[in-house]
C-alpha cells in the first residue's frame, strides 16, 4: 500500500512540476541582469526600471485596467442575473435556447466570437454610425467572454443554497426583489467575488477578442505583450509577467483563505445548532 502511495505522490509532483516550472522561470529570469533571457549573469532590477519607463506598456496597461474593471462589473451584473434565471425558473419559453447561449461561449473558439462580434459592430456602424471600434466594443466583447463563467458559478452556488431561507422570507411577506437583495445576494457574495476576479483576469490578457474589436487608438496590454512575444523573448515581458503572477497569486490565495474560513464557520454553526436542538 505504501509503495502505491509513494507512486501517487511522485506522479502528482510531476504534474505540478509541469504546471509550475514555466511560471517559475519567468519570475526567476525577470531578475536576470543579462539581456539574453536564458543566460543567468546576476541579480538585477533593471528590467523593472525599464518597464516603469516604457510609455507604450504603461499606457496600454492603464487602458487594460480600465477595460478589465468595467468588464468585471458588467459580467458580474449580467452573469448573476442570467445565473439566477438559469437556476430559479423551471420552465419558460426559449429555455433551451437560453441555456444554449450560456453554455456555448464556454467552449466556442474565441476566433469565431471575435469575428462575428466584429462583423456585427461593422454592420451597426454602417447602418447607425455607431459604435466605432475602440474601448467600448472591446468592453462588450470581453463581457461576452466572461458572462457565461459568472452565470454558471452563480447557478451552481444557488443550486447548493438552502431553499428554506428564501421560503421563510417569502412567508414573512418579503417581495421577490427584497428577498433577492437581502437573502440571496449576501449568500452568493463569494461566488460574485470569484466571478469578478475571473472576469478581470480574462479581460486583462485576452488577445483575440481585443485584436478583432480594437480601433486604431486603442492598444491594450495583451496586444503589446503578444506582439513582443511573437518576436521572441523579452526581459521586460518577464518583469511584467512576474508582476501579474504575484498579483493573481495573492488575490487567489486571499480569496481562497476567506472562502475556507467562512465555510468552517458555517459548518461550526450548523453543528452547534444541531447540538442545541
Amino acid at each position, binding site marked *: 500500500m505504501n509503495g502505491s502511495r509513494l507512486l501517487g505522490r511522485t506522479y502528482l509532483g510531476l*504534474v505540478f512540476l509541469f504546471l509550475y516550472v514555466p511560471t517559475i522561470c*519567468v519570475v526567476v529570469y525577470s531578475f536576470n541582469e543579462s539581456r539574453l533571457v536564458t543566460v543567468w549573469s546576476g541579480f538585477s532590477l533593471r528590467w523593472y526600471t525599464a518597464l516603469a519607463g516604457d510609455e507604450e506598456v504603461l499606457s496600454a496597461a492603464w487602458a487594460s485596467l480600465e477595460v478589465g474593471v468595467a468588464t468585471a462589473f458588467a459580467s458580474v451584473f449580467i452573469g448573476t442575473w442570467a445565473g439566477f434565471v438559469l437556476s430559479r425558473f423551471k420552465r419558460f419559453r426559449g429555455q433551451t435556447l437560453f441555456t*444554449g447561449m450560456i453554455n456555448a461561449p464556454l467552449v466556442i473558439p474565441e476566433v469565431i466570437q471575435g469575428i462575428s462580434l466584429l462583423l456585427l459592430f461593422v454592420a451597426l456602424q454602417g447602418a447607425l454610425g455607431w459604435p466605432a471600434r475602440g474601448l467600448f466594443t472591446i468592453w462588450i466583447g470581453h463581457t461576452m467572454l466572461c458572462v457565461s463563467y459568472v452565470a454558471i458559478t452563480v447557478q451552481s452556488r444557488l443550486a447548493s443554497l438552502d431553499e428554506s431561507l428564501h421560503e421563510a422570507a417569502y412567508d414573512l411577506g418579503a417581495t421577490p426583489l427584497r428577498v433577492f*437583495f*437581502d437573502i440571496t445576494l449576501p449568500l452568493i457574495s463569494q461566488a460574485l467575488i470569484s466571478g469578478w476576479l475571473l472576469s478581470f483576469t480574462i479581460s486583462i490578457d485576452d488577445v483575440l477578442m481585443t485584436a478583432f474589436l480594437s480601433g486604431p487608438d486603442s492598444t491594450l496590454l*495583451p496586444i503589446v505583450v503578444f506582439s513582443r512575444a511573437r518576436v521572441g523573448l523579452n526581459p521586460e515581458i518577464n518583469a511584467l509577467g512576474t508582476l501579474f503572477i504575484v498579483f493573481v497569486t495573492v488575490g487567489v490565495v486571499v480569496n481562497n483563505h476567506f472562502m475556507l474560513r467562512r465555510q468552517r464557520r458555517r459548518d461550526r454553526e450548523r453543528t452547534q445548532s444541531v447540538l442545541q436542538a
Partner: protein
Amino acid sequence: MTDRLALPARRGRTRGLAARLASWLPSWLPKGRTFVIAAPFAFLLVFFLVPFVAVLKISFADVQMSVPPYTSLVDLTDGTLKIALDFEHFRTVLTDHLYLGAYVFSVEVAAMTTLVCLLVGYPACYLIARADPAHRNLLLMMVMLPFWTSYLIRVYAWIGLLKNQGLINNVLIWAHLTDEPLKIYHNNWGLMIGMVYNYLPYLMLPLYAYLVKLDMTLVEAAYDLGARPAAAFFTITLPMSRRGIIASSLLVFIPAVGEYVIPELLGGSNSLMIGRVMWDDFFVSTDWPTASAATVAMVVLLLLPMAWFQRIRQKDIEGAR
C-alpha cells in the same frame, strides 16, 4: 446568525433601491417574471446569436476595396430588388488545400491535446479526489492557480524553456543526455507541449468535480467481492466517471480547434491551424467574406460536439435543482 445580525444595516438601503428601481421602470416594460427572464435573454441574443447572422450574411458577399471590405447582398436600384449571393467562398473553403488542410490539422491537434490531457489529468484528478480532505483544498488550488494566471504569460514562458539555448536543452546537454539541442521550439512539438500545458487545468477542474462526487462504497464492495484493482477500475470507476470524462474532454477539444495564440507563438510556420488562417484572412489579406465562410464552416464542424456538451450541461443543471 451572523448573516441575520448584518441585515438591519442593509435593509433600509435596499428597500430604497428596490422602490426606486420599480418606479424607474417604464410602464410598457413587461413586469415581474417576464422582465427578469427577458433582460439577460435579450442581451445574449443581441451579442451572441445575432452576430452569427452577420457572419452568415457576409460569407455570401464579395470582396470589395472599400470600408467595410465587402459588397452588400441586397441591392435596390430602379425599383428592382437584386440579390447577389456568392457561393465562391464556400467552394474555396471546402476545396482549397490551405483551408481543408488547416481544418484537418486543427482537428488532429485538438484531438491529440484532449487525449494527452486526459491521460495525464485523469490519474491526477483521481489522486486529488482520493487525497486526505485536509490536503485536497490546497491541491485543488494548485490546479486552479495556473488557470487564473495570465494565459499569455504562461504560453510565453515556454519560449524560454523550449528554445535551442533554453532551459530544457541546457539541462539535457549538461546531463550529457544529448549532444545537440532538441528541436522543440517553432514546430509541432512546441505546439503540442504548449497546447497540453494550457488546456490541462481546463480538463482537470471539471473532471475533479465529477470524480470527487463518485460513490466509493461501490468500489469498496467490488474489492470485498474479490475484484482486483484493475478490474474494479475498469468495471466500476471508469464507467461511473463517463459523463465527467466526456464533458471535460469537450471543454478541451472544442476551443482547442480554434486556438490561435499557441500555434502562433510556439508552433512552426507549417503549424497552420484554422484560427491562424482566419486571422491572416482578416488582418493580412482583408478577405472578410472568405474568413466568414471559414467561420461558418467551423461552426458547422463544431455543432455536433457543442450540442453534446449542451446536453450534458443541461442534465447537470437539472440534476442540481
